[in-house]
């Protein structure tokens, strides 16, 4: 009898011989050479990610064949005929650009200079001393998302450990942006479901309680998803507490011109803070107000207390952009520069802006009127009228929102947000029926 180890050795040896035979066979098949076949994917353990809660709504809508279906999901403007809208000034600008036969060279990392200049002026006002003093660093970014991401990366690098406070609720992608940028965040109270209005005391209280030097994310106008904005007096109080705590205001301006119809009025919150001499960050988007959604055009602005600080901050924003995408896309930037830079086109834009905002205000009114006409319970739906911008927070909960989709084929986000930009006057009655049914018959 041989010792057990010898048997093990012989078995191991035998096993090896089998392995060699198998490999030779596989090699002879020509499938692999000099390599053991790896049949399992390196990515086998990866799970299927859930669909995006906002963008996924449109996908579901497209799949629905019901004739009364209504897409009130993503905030993209629709005409009364529920068609996408390319602004007249945009078409004109694109034609001009084509006629000029411009080159397609790389933009500088910070983007198109004419675009950056126009953007800062649009935000603060062309005659704002901050611009003359060169205290604003503007870097072209990939619309609102991309601009927020650049700012988040700046915060992570230069204010490591500082928190961003975001409103409860806020746009669903905000937390993803800060998570991926590894910036800690927490929420400040904002929406009061009891009043379907602003929880102002809660907001002030939470901002005050935050560690000194936190970044406070504020929606410049037309809060997404609630449509509830602070009043001018409330903005002053918010600025007071931010200054008290040496916090840094961080504005997300995605709807300038779209809320009230006036570009200047919609920038008043930002200008109020800037006029106090505060340093602030502002992420801007031209997706909605110039209808340039797919062109991904926006900017991150940093208002600093000196031109020197602005120059340094700009240089660091560039350092963040370079390993992300090198330099931003030229097309949308040129469109903006052409529209804003030409007085005739700029005025035409303002008119188109008023029309879009006007249509939304009018369907908002019509929806309210339809609901009031049908609901005799005496419930106060006036919060719908007080809200501003593309969205309305209906006050419907998740189950009720699901009912809107499942029973009425009305597509919206689960937080009860509807995009009025996707509503036509013709569909207001239908929507009113759906809302009333969901509110009263589903809990």
């Amino acid at each position: 009898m041989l010792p057990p180890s010898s048997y093990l050795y012989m078995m191991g040896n035998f096993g090896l011989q089998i392995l060699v035979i198998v490999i030779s066979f596989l090699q002879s098949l020509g499938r692999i050479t000099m390599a053991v076949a790896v049949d399992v994917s390196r990515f086998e353990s990866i799970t299927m990610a859930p669909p995006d809660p906002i963008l996924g709504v449109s996908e579901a809508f497209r799949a629905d064949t019901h004739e009364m279906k209504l897409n009130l999901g993503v905030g993209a403007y629709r005409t009364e005929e529920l068609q996408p809208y390319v602004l007249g000034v945009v078409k004109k600008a694109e034609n001009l650009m084509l006629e000029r036969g411009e080159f397609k060279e790389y933009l500088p990392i910070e983007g198109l200079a004419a675009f950056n200049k126009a953007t800062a002026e649009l935000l603060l006002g062309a005659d704002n001393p901050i611009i003359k003093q060169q205290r604003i660093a503007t870097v072209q970014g990939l619309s609102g998302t991309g601009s927020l991401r650049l700012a988040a990366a700046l915060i992570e690098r230069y204010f490591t450990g500082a928190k961003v406070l975001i409103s409860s609720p806020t746009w669903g992608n905000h937390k993803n942006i800060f998570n991926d940028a590894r910036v800690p965040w927490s929420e400040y109270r904002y929406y009061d479901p009891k009043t379907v209005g602003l929880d102002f005391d809660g907001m002030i209280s939470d901002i005050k309680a935050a560690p000194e030097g936190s970044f406070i994310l504020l929606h410049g106008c037309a809060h997404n998803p609630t449509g509830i904005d602070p009043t001018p007096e409330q903005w002053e109080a918010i600025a007071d507490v931010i200054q008290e705590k040496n916090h840094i205001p961080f504005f997300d301006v995605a709807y300038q011109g779209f809320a009230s119809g006036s570009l200047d009025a919609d920038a008043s919150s930002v200008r109020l803070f800037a006029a106090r001499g505060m340093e602030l960050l502002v992420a801007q988007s031209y997706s909605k107000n110039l209808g340039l959604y797919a062109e991904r055009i926006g900017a991150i602005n940093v208002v600093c207390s000196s031109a020197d600080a602005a120059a340094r901050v700009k240089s660091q924003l560039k350092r963040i952009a370079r390993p992300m995408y090198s330099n931003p896309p030229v097309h949308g930037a040129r469109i903006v520069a052409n529209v804003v830079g030409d007085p005739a086109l700029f005025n035409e834009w303002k008119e188109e802006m008023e029309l879009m905002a006007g249509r939304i205000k009018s369907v908002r009114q019509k929806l309210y009127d339809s609901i009031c006409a049908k609901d005799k319970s005496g419930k106060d739906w006036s919060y719908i009228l007080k809200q501003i911008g593309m969205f309305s927070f209906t006050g419907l909960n998740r189950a009720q929102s699901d009912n809107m989709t499942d029973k009425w084929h009305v597509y919206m986000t689960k937080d009860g947000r509807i995009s009025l930009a996707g509503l036509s006057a013709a569909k207001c009655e239908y929507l009113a029926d759906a809302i009333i049914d969901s509110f009263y018959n589903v809990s």
Partner: protein
Amino acid sequence: MSASSDHQDSVFSHVVQAPEDPILGVTVAYNKDPNPIKLNLGVGAYRTEEGKPLVLNVVRRAEQMLVNDQSRVKEYLPIIGLSDFNKSSAKLIFGADSTAIQENRVTTVQCLSGTGSLRVGAEFLARHYHEHTIYIPQPTWGNHPKIFNLAGLSVKPYRYYNPQTRGLDFQGLLEDLGAAPSGAIVLLHACAHNPTGVDPTLDQWEQIRQLMRSKGLLPFFDSAYQGFASGSLDADAQSVRMFVADGGECLAAQSYAKNMGLYGERVGALSIVCKTADVASRVESQLKMVIRPMYSNPPIHGASIVAVILKDRDLYNEWTVELKAMADRIISMRKQLFDALQAKGMAYKLLFTLVIHVCTPGDWSHIIKQIGMFTFTGLNTEQVAFMTREYHIYMTSDGRISMAGLNSRKVPHLADAIHAAVASIA
């Protein structure tokens, strides 16, 4: 309420001025130079014989079609971009008859040119792949290590360029990749290596492939010059296709900046070739999770131009002709520069001045052996600084020149500058 806050400390006091990007900063410096003899051989952007940027005819025509099409809208693209663009891009790099594509094992997502594709791919690997080290060739494009580091990968070098032969250090490459831990990621330039212009031969690629597969190393291709290197789109994709043909997995970042001249439009694609269609589908869903918090969805304009051209047979054919013309002009610039340097008796001088540094007999034949937009001249940083100072020639400090920025009229000036730099600085 004071409108000025000069007295107030900035919260950004501690933010220091960042240096200019070493590559893009060359153009910044060039633009500032008022001297008319200046020459920009910095960034790899194609210039015509007249020294002008070029927009391809097919691009102008495609753009006209798009602008004229009244039914076009500017709605958000899906997170992964334009579907037609993605499909066409995959076919372009992997081949129209690729079984991997037919088997739905490839996920392709539109990204912001090469940089964006590399970044998204790297972020994905940092989150979902078990090995977080990426091996990059020495040298490589200056932006590569920054992209990978910020994505969360650690970067290690593998030997690539041999300064003595001005060619490939193939033994060093095999040794370094052979010593890499199993499963490590390896960055490969699909063709026209940047900055050296030195590519492996097909035989060498096959050996690299075998070694990598035997060690389970994960290939991550950077394809920024398909069609631009040799003039043939298929030839320039051979390295990638070789790896896909063996049934294994890989990543490929594609850029249309150079081969379609779409630099500023930021058009590119990231493809991940997976073992099964099911895996590809799950991988795609996770790529969306990387993209959405970065920029939500990609820009439509450049991708639409590419899709129009790739899908139309006539436009596609015309594109290949324009592409070959660009590649041919660059090859001709290489020849002209080589001839000019030979004529100046450089070989002789070089033997004396560079014998301390290199062992090869002085010759500039690497200029015509290297391929693609760039030439690694072998000049050192002092010599480069000299050329900029005295001859207003702008290039990156590693001695890389962009042949795409050269034209016949400027060849003598460049040859003079190189001659003077080599003669006056050791």
